[in-house]
Each structure stands twice: as structure tokens, then as C-alpha cells.
């Protein structure tokens, strides 16, 4: 492209004229790169089989099923640079988290990875996806960390993940050649974007508010969802529980999905107004940038709204409490409406869980959080039903009985059954 044309092109990208970020799915088309078994068996013949780790495997699955539309594979350098520097893909669509495939120089040599070659990615010793390598490149990880996380502090888990990437990145298209089997209890809550969109249509849901969760729901979460349902004039709430890498002390994933579904099952959300699903993803804790990412993924699922409470996707004190609310003001219409909520607290005067902007008894407010509720449960105290539904408590106690604790422990990590299995092709 000539110099003047490039200047005009990027100016148009800058003011969002070239692409329409409001399209749903993001980019205008739901990516689906999945081969049926017969075509898959043919496609993998003669390919070098390269084993991959958990993160790469779930991102292959997400890419192939369209969770990350418009991405069709792991990012090439132009996309990584545009995402890091400008929170855009090279083509102009908003995107906030680099999706990368990393390898050491040694591994690149060992497996004969080179641009123009297609390899077979294997996981759990089974074929998972083909990878059409288009580019192998390096990228400054400090620059990546600073821009994506706003810090280079290695205590930030996302920064630590970034610094842990090996020295080379490989970009190229991914095609799933094998269907992952989600293990119970997750199988009931696993929907691809295509399946979820079909489900919404079958249920007659035109407005769906997404609730992102990594926690067993307390009443604050429940009212966050109900408040967002009202604010969105929604047909339903979709709980999109993030299932992925866990930290010691987190709720176990089994407890999270079953507890959320208990709210529907026991009528705290009328049948037809609530649904639980899972999203396979290792949290980056990127605060506002991750809030944007979450919004785009849930748009790809067919959601029209996404609720954001306090400190969404944050960790420690790296991000201002409501930074994830404000970032959307800097962006064009993303085709999914952020529903921003402040605090819910327990008020002894109102005698209910109530909202910061409605309750006139701030001086009497009794605040609570997921951390406090976990602490209370850990101390063997059953919270009152106003704060924590008894059926949710029963799910948590059931998880304690079945897994030793409702919270992640070393023992749980050693003994847990994988969330998904890759069957033989």
C-alpha cells in the first residue's frame, strides 16, 4: 500500500469507519472450523503430531468453535502488535487480549515448525486440531505485559503468565479434528456459540444478559443478575461460568456450576429466565481489558448485554474498582451493551439485600463479598438465606463431602478428573 493510502487507511481505522464492531458475532460471521471424523482422519494423515498444554488446548477449542470470532487461529505478529498497542486486531476490530501459541526455539527445531507447514496438535495423547503455521515470530513480553495488564509486576498472575511464555510465537489457522467430551457435571452446561444461539432462538430469548462468574453465587451476585435483567429488559440471564486454571482457595468448578444452576432449579429465577453455561478460559486478571474480552466472547455466544460489577476481572489493587466500567466509554459500539452495577449490600433497616444507589441507610450498610462468604463457610457457619440461599449452601456442602472441600486444595488439584476428555479419533 502506498504511503498516503496507508495514512488514510489507518486514520479511517482509528475513527472506526472501516469495520463495524457492532456486528454480532464479532466480525460479522461465527467462525466454525471443525471437521467431521471422516474428513478429520484424512486431514491428519502424515502430519507431525505436536503435544500441547492445557491453555493451548482450550484455546484451540475456543477458536475452532467461534468463541473468539473473528479469530480463526493463533495470532500473527501484526495482530499481536495491534492488540497490544491499540486494543484492535490489525484489520480494525476491537480485541483486547493476545491469543498466542508459544514455543521454545528448541521445540520449534525439534518439531520442525515452519511457516507454510501444517502440524497436528495433540492433547491427552489424542489428535485435537490441525495448525496451519503461517508465521513464527518474537515479541517483547515486557511490552505485552505493560500494555495488556498495565503493569510489569511479576506478582500479577497475567504478567507472570506472559513472562512464562517461551521465546517464539507461532501464528496460523486452527481446525478442530476431534470433538472434546466434557466430563460430568460440566457436560450439562457446555454449549458452543452455535448451540447457544440456537437455544436462545428456540426459547424465544432475544435479549440475554451475560453474567460472568468464577464463584458460587451469594445474594449479592443473585441481585446483580436480577438488577441486570431489569436494566436490560432481558428475556433471560446467561451465567457464563469461567472454567479453567484454579488457585488454591478458589471455589471448585463443580460447586460453581451446580450452585448457579441451583438458583434456577429452586425457583430463585423462574424457569425460562436463567441458564447456566461454561466458558473454558484461564483468567488473565487483566481488569478492564479482560472486561472487553469477556464482552466480545459473550456477544459471540449471542448475548446482547453483559453485566459488570465491582473490580471485574481484577486482582489485588492493580486496577481502579470501576475501571472495567469506564473502558467501554473509550470504545465504539461493540454490539453488546455493558450493564454497569455498583454495590449491593445488606441493610438491617431495609432488612434486605439492597443497592447502593437506592438504599438511604449507608451508615448502617453491612457489606459482604465473596471473600467474606467463603470465610464464613470455612468457619462452619451457615449464612442466613437472605445472604446465601440454603440450596446453594447444600450444593457447597455436597461438594465438600464429595471432593473434601468446596475450595481448591492441593489434594483436589492432584485428584480431580479433567474437565474434558479427548476421545480417540
Amino acid at each position, binding site marked *: 500500500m502506498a504511503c498516503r493510502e496507508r495514512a488514510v487507511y489507518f486514520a479511517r481505522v482509528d475513527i472506526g469507519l472501516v469495520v463495524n464492531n457492532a456486528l454480532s458475532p464479532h466480525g460479522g460471521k461465527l467462525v466454525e472450523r471443525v471437521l467431521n471424523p471422516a474428513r478429520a482422519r484424512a486431514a491428519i494423515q502424515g502430519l507431525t503430531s505436536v503435544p500441547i498444554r492445557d491453555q493451548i488446548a482450550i484455546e484451540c477449542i475456543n477458536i475452532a468453535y467461534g468463541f473468539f470470532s473473528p479469530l480463526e487461529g493463533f495470532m500473527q505478529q501484526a495482530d499481536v502488535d495491534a492488540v497490544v498497542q491499540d486494543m484492535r486486531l490489525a484489520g480494525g476490530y476491537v480485541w483486547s487480549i493476545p491469543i498466542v501459541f508459544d514455543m521454545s526455539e528448541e521445540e520449534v527445531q525439534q518439531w520442525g515448525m515452519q511457516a507454510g507447514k501444517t502440524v497436528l496438535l495433540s492433547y491427552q495423547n489424542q489428535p485435537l486440531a490441525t495448525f496451519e503455521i503461517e508465521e513464527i515470530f518474537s515479541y517483547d513480553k515486557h511490552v505485552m505485559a505493560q500494555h495488556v495488564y498495565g503493569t510489569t509486576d511479576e506478582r500479577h498472575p497475567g504478567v507472570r503468565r506472559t513472562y512464562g511464555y517461551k521465546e517464539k510465537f507461532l501464528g496460523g489457522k486452527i481446525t478442530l479434528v476431534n470433538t472434546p467430551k466434557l466430563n460430568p457435571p460440566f457436560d450439562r452446561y457446555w454449549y458452543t456459540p452455535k448451540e447457544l444461539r440456537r437455544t436462545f432462538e428456540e426459547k424465544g430469548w432475544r435479549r440475554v444478559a451475560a453474567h460472568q462468574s468464577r464463584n458460587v453465587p451469594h445474594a449479592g451476585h443473585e441481585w446483580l443478575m436480577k438488577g441486570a435483567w431489569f436494566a436490560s429488559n432481558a428475556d433471560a440471564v446467561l451465567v457464563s461460568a469461567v472454567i479453567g486454571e484454579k488457585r*488454591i*482457595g478458589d471455589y471448585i468448578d463443580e460447586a460453581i456450576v451446580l450452585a448457579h444452576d441451583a438458583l434456577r432449579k429452586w425457583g430463585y429465577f423462574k424457569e425460562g429466565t436463567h441458564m447456566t453455561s461454561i466458558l473454558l478460559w484461564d483468567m488473565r486478571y487483566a481488569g478492564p481489558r479482560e472486561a472487553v474480552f469477556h464482552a466480545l466472547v459473550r456477544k459471540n455466544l449471542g448475548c446482547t448485554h453483559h453485566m459488570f460489577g*465491582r*473490580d471485574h476481572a481484577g486482582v489485588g*489493587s492493580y486496577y481502579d*474498582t470501576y475501571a472495567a466500567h469506564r473502558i467501554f466509554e473509550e470504545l465504539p459500539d461493540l454490539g453488546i451493551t455493558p450493564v454497569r452495577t455498583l*454495590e449491593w449490600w*445488606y441493610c*438491617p433497616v431495609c432488612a434486605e439485600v439492597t443497592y447502593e444507589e437506592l438504599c438511604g441507610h449507608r451508615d448502617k450498610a*453491612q*457489606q*459482604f*463479598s465473596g*471473600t*467474606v462468604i*467463603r*470465610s*464464613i463457610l*470455612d*468457619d*462452619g*457457619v451457615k*449464612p*442466613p438465606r*437472605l*445472604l446465601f440461599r440454603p440450596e446453594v449452601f447444600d450444593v457447597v456442602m455436597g461438594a465438600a463431602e464429595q471432593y473434601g472441600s468446596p475450595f481448591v486444595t492441593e489434594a483436589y488439584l492432584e485428584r480431580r478428573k479433567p474437565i474434558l476428555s479427548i476421545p480417540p479419533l
Partner: protein
Amino acid sequence: MSEAVYPINIWINEERFARLQEAGLVDMAKDILAGMKVIQVLASPQQTELILEKFPTAKCDTATTKTIELLPRSVKNDLFNLVIERRSVNIVDVYLESLQ
């Protein structure tokens, strides 16, 4: 860590309540959340840092409740035992000494 003092919350379960009753210390427990009672043990900023360093699963909930939560139950049991024994919530220094 700022100069703010964050209480360590020891939530009162049935067993702890019985022990408070037995010791005549029920009034020491505060109702701070929807009728749930807690013994709040105060730690200075320096003591808080030591405790959080020693027990990394614990968390200082600076965003919402401004309390220290998620200490291991055994630690809270030890702190609670000291409260009963000394009939006081000013026991963190004694506890930290016992760890050395």
C-alpha cells in the same frame, strides 16, 4: 500496606458460641452481618503484614469489608482459644510470639 487497621474476623459457629457462653463472653461477639456474629481481633498494620506473609491464602478484603479473611481455620481456632483464655481480643502479639 496503609496505616489502616483491619480486623481479623473469627466467625462464630455453634461450637464457638457454646464456648463463649461457657466463658460468659457472649457480649464480646459483634453482630456485623445479617445477624451473624464475629469476634474481631485487631492487628496493627505491621502485624497484619506478618500474618499475611505467614499465611498466604489469607486475604485483606480492602475493597469491601476492610477485614482480614480466609486465614486457615486452625489459625482462627488458635486465635479464638487465646481470646477465651485471656478474655480479651488484644491477643495478636501473643499469638505471633507463639509462632516463633
